[in-house]
């Protein structure tokens, strides 16, 4: 580790340039890489003249078949006669000629710094160094084992596209571009992570995106000085507006159609190599209640489902608290037969309602986490145990009242309705807070908790956009896509605070009037 550091610093301090001598160059690269076994260094003699050259690539990241077909074969067999100067060295223009005329690969770059060559090498490119030149050629023929485009796992739909992002950023950008054939769909690339050199790309539609948001995003990305970025989660934590909040202020999705829809609204997508989850900013609270499916199903059904999601959100967050408050502080709010029935169930239960709810919720959370992390093939075992533990057994043993099991199950199921996983976490954590406050102060406590929560939500910003918009600040035209979804032909404008660079999405279709819409917002 320390050796590497010294080498790295050596590279920085003046030895970053290549030398003329091939041997020296190869040695430098090899030493810098600690003579790692997966770095292959092949020394060849080019052409009939036998000019010494070195080919370096990272085993496993390079397409060795194309390496043989297009590089080794060309160089060693098909290379036409070249002019050689005295001393067996080729012409100064040789490297240029190789690049321009000889190498039959799509993209070749020339580079003369050790650091950029190393960067390419470790990204999977092949390096060609020729004796006598203080520069190397970078031949991109990356290929490694990777997952195919599969169906999304966490954001499934019934009716809609079935592809999802993969770990390969190129595949991901291609998936987005396939949906938006717009010359204004721009893509900005940068490397983040001093050691991981992870590729991070911004995608946005020029002309729709708010430039100030884009500048702010670039600034925040440039501030990242971490050694490694392993997932888009790292980026999310670096660029979010507030660190300590329960609410996700950056949207993530594994669905290319969701990204495309968001780009069309004027948002920015952040793609991180190695992650099948794409980040989207700015993100609003209401966005976490929207599933791509809302736009693919018929309008009334979608609106109903969306209202159902809001209802489930409140159920998942407040139901146990509500139950605790009502049974311990406000029994007069229950209809008498229900009160008697609940009281009968509580006969003999040794714990107070708050304790009871805590035990059950914790048990459920444990089961859920266990089910998630466990090896797949013993998954069925946990469901049996789980059903037994939090189901009948606890009730029959008289530890838990039956009503509490109903409350906890309903809570759990309501939690799964959330179309974006992130908001589910929020709800799970807040639920415990509300339970405690309800157990201490009843409805009064729940109200205080809700007021604090809403105050906090209103103070949140996602890249300068109020998190709770378009509810607060209220905006009429955005209501078409908030609690309900209006028919798509009726959604004329982009979200007000996000798409203000170009607010008109479509003109109302008026028969007989010429279409005056500008070309880019019509597709």
């Amino acid at each position, binding site marked *: 580790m320390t050796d590497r550091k010294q080498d790295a610093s050596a590279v920085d301090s003046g030895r970053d340039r290549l030398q003329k001598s091939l041997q020296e160059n190869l040695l430098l690269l090899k030493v810098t890489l600690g003579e790692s076994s997966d770095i292959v260094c092949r020394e060849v003699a080019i052409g009939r003249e036998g000019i010494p050259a070195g080919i370096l690539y990272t085993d496993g990241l390079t397409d060795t078949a194309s390496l043989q077909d297009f590089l080794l074969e060309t160089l060693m067999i098909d290379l036409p006669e070249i002019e050689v100067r005295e001393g067996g060295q080729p012409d100064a223009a040789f490297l240029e000629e190789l690049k321009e005329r000889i190498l039959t690969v799509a993209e070749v770059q020339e580079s003369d710094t050790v650091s950029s060559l190393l960067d390419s090498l470790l990204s999977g490119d092949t390096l060609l160094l020729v004796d006598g030149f203080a520069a190397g050629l970078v031949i991109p023929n990356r290929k490694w084992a990777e997952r195919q485009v599969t169906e999304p796992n966490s954001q499934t739909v019934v009716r809609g596209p079935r592809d999802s992002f993969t770990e390969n950023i190129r595949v991901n950008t291609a998936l987005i571009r396939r949906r938006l054939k717009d010359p204004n769909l721009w893509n900005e690339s940068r490397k983040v992570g001093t050691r991981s050199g992870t590729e991070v790309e911004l995608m946005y539609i020029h002309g729709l995106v708010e430039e100030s948001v884009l500048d702010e995003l670039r600034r925040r990305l440039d501030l990242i000085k971490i050694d490694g970025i392993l997932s888009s989660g790292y980026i999310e934590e670096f660029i979010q507006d507030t660190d300590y909040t329960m609410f996700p202020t950056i949207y993530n999705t594994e669905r290319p159609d969701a990204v495309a829809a968001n780009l069309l609204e004027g948002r920015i997508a952040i793609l991180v190599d190695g992650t099948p989850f794409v980040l989207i900013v700015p993100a609003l609270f209401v966005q976490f209640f929207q599933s791509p499916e809302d736009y693919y199903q018929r309008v009334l059904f979608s609106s109903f489902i969306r209202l159902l999601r809001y209802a489930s959100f409140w159920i998942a967050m407040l139901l146990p608290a509500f139950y605790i408050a009502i049974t311990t*502080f406000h029994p007069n709010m229950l209809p008498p037969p229900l009160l008697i029935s609940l009281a009968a169930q509580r006969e003999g239960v040794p714990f107070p309602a708050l304790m009871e709810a805590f035990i059950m919720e914790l048990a459920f959370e444990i089961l859920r986490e266990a089910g998630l992390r466990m090896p797949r093939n013993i998954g069925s075992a946990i469901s049996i145990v789980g059903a037994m533990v939090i189901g009948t057994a606890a009730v029959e043993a008289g530890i838990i009242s039956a009503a509490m099991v109903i409350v906890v199950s309903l809570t759990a199921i309501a939690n799964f309705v959330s179309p974006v996983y992130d908001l589910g976490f929020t709800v799970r954590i807040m639920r415990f807070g509300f339970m405690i406050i309800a157990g201490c102060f009843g409805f*009064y406590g729940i109200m205080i908790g809700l007021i604090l929560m809403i105050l906090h939500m209103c103070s949140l910003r996602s890249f300068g956009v109020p998190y709770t918009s378009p509810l607060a600040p209220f905006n009429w035209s955005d209501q078409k896509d908030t609690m309900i979804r209006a028919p798509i032909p009726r959604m004329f404008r982009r979200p007000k605070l996000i798409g203000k660079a170009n607010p008109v999405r479509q003109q109302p279709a008026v028969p007989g009037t010429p279409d005056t819409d500008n070309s880019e917002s019509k597709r």
Partner: protein
Amino acid sequence: MKKPLLIILICCCFLTGCWDKRELNEIAITVAFGIDKSDDGGFRVSAQIVVPSAISSTKGAEATPVLLFQADGETAYEAIRKMTKQVPRKIYPGHLKLLVIGEEMAREGIWDSLDIFVRDWELRPDFSVVVSKDRPASEILAVPTALDTIPANKLFEMLENSSDNWSAVQKISLHELLADISSEGKDAVLTGVMSTGDPGEASKEMMGEIRPAVRLYFDNLAVFEKDRLVGWLGAEQSKGFNYVSGNIKSTVETVSCPEGGNVAIEVTKSDSKIKASFNGESPEMEITVKNKGNVGSVQCGLDMKKPESLHTLESLFEKKLTGTIEETIKEAQSRRGSDIFGFGRTIHRSYPDKWKSLKSEWADHGFSDVPVKVKVEMDIQMTGTLLNPL
């Protein structure tokens, strides 16, 4: 930004509105209270308390569904607190259904016993108040019932059902009672609750029988003067009272045919209007009762195909009801002080300035001297699926 939030949070801990946390298995759900006079002149409060485990469907009906506790005290509040000596849980009256006042207590005045039921914040004043006729309330509350195993529930629903479909009794909630007692020119009535047989002999085994010896039923209306019970209206008169006060939701009247036999007429709608007028300085009342109804059953030779028969029935009905109402009014006026129809209130509202002079002697002789004209209208609409009797 953070500091004000913190201060609010800390304040929350002190500004608690709900300090009395009680689990459901720490409260004694009280569904009925009975108030009697105790031997030493104080209050004897009985509380009917639900035993939840006996009610729940999973466990059988082996256990007693309710328990009755009793305690004496100089005030009702004291008596209720004294009950903790016998009850392991705190009396929770939030779901009170029924308040039974013993006749003996009612004759001395109910104002004092009602105070706690209004003052206590845990109570909702929508429970029904009834008077137990001839017997102490505690005996009434000790009678087990079938169909609904909680006697208070059963009584409550019986009262509701009967006032909807028979209308001889009246469901009066606490706030209605308070409004009647405290308003000027109107006195209160309360439904009476009675039992067949001796409630002392009621036992749980009795519920095994198809026709239990001891049964509770509602009948008669207790007439109050201010807050003191002064007498009872009989069954017919109770109905007459309900016609006048517009409380009839649906009922059945039987009229005799001219050629003998009976016809039952179902009253589906009844509206009453009490109007005051002045003949010089003396007031006059006019009561108009407008009814709509159907022929329910015919046990005489009337030809129902003819419209005249319906007119005959209508006039017969009108005559009968006029008689009932007049009798009721006569009975009420014989007890000078209790203006249960609210004649005084009607005058007060229509002629506030003249009421001022009448007010002082209204209870003495004003009410009993006022002449009353009764007008009854009946409109028979349907004769059912059968024209002529079988």
